[in-house]
């Protein structure tokens, strides 16, 4: 007999306003598994990202397999399990962008800011994410900088755009 952990002990502090909000949302959705994405959105809105103990709690309450919850979170680029930076840089790594040098963009950002995809700079200013085909293959390689689509981006372009983001930041 192999004794295992249980998800039953997954819990969150019930007096936390964010937990209350989450409970209300899950109840409103009737604890339906279909509402998982909605519920995750809600949680991310209040937490800024999706901490693992929040995911454990959601899996327990909705009685969903943990791997399904984690898989869903990792599938959509708008979910993050790390706290996001003040500026987000989303590099498309879909086939078209990959072929046109998306990896070079990621490498350059890593070289310049020591930032791997999914990470945030130590000062919390820039968060780097990678996406799978953002549906703008004609503009490959494409990057979304703070919700703005950037077309045919070169590594140099990207670095200068990110640097100017940081500068405006310092001024304002």
């Amino acid at each position, binding site marked *: 007999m*192999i004794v*295992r*952990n*249980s*998800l039953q002990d997954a819990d969150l502090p019930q007096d936390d306003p964010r937990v209350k909000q989450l409970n209300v949302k899950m109840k409103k959705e009737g604890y339906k598994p279909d509402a998982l994405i909605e519920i995750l959105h809600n949680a991310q809105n209040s937490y800024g990202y999706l901490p*693992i103990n929040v*995911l*454990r709690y959601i899996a327990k309450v909705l009685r969903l*397999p*943990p*791997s*399904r*919850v*984690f*898989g869903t979170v*990792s*599938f959509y680029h708008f979910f993050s399990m790390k706290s996001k930076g003040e500026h987000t840089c989303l590099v498309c*790594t*879909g*086939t078209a962008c990959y072929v046109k040098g998306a990896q070079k963009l990621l490498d350059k950002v890593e070289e310049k800011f020591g930032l791997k995809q999914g990470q945030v700079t130590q000062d919390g200013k820039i968060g780097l994410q990678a996406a*799978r085909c953002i549906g703008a293959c004609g503009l490959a390689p494409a990057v979304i900088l703070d919700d703005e689509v950037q077309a045919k981006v070169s590594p140099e372009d990207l670095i200068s755009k990110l640097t100017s983001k940081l500068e405006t930041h310092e001024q304002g």
Partner: protein
Amino acid sequence: MMALVTIYIDGKKIIAGSEKTILEVARENNIEILTMCHLKGLTDVGACRLCMVELEGSPKLFSACTTKVADNMIVTTNSERIRRYQRITTELFFAERNHICAVCVSNGACELQDLGYKVGLDAIRYPHLFPQCEVDTSHPLYVMDQNRCISCSRCIRACAEVEGAYNWDMMNRGYQIRVISDFNTLWGESTTCTSCGKCVQACPTGALWAKSIVQGQQDKHPEFITDLMERRKMNL
């Protein structure tokens, strides 16, 4: 009462039930279609693109495992184009992870290796990605080696649909896809796995194996999953 349809596969006229897939009908008639993610008894998901066939009247290719037959359908399974695609698909399986057959538990008993022989693979024309992959040895009985995984999802479906445990799922997308246990946590720390071994039986490669098996001694029985599901339907 199921409707019957007439279809033609590689010129052979066949009468078949309309609820069947092209793959089912082909196999019942001893026409070979290569598959990888299909495992009879599990829900078909059309993930591997190996079973692609041509349908007359369409320039597209269709996955035989997920496409239902229809009246007067004319199917081609063995054209030059299909063979080319099968070969590409197979090469990509090998290029995507680190398949070193000589040191694999499944050497000599591997569906991927068999597939390589079937399509006459002599070289891989694509650059190997050589990803860094984890090997999870934390489970007391089994090992999960991501190096040899082809993301067919048979383990996921066997665990969820047959055992009902749902330990596995996929995380990420594209070339970064990985099979995960629970919250991308160690298999040995799973809150869902019952250690039944069905995923190991379902896996076509050496990605999942039992610790009791030594190198080159793999002995998998995916048909065990098929039999289980057949018996389950019988209401014994």
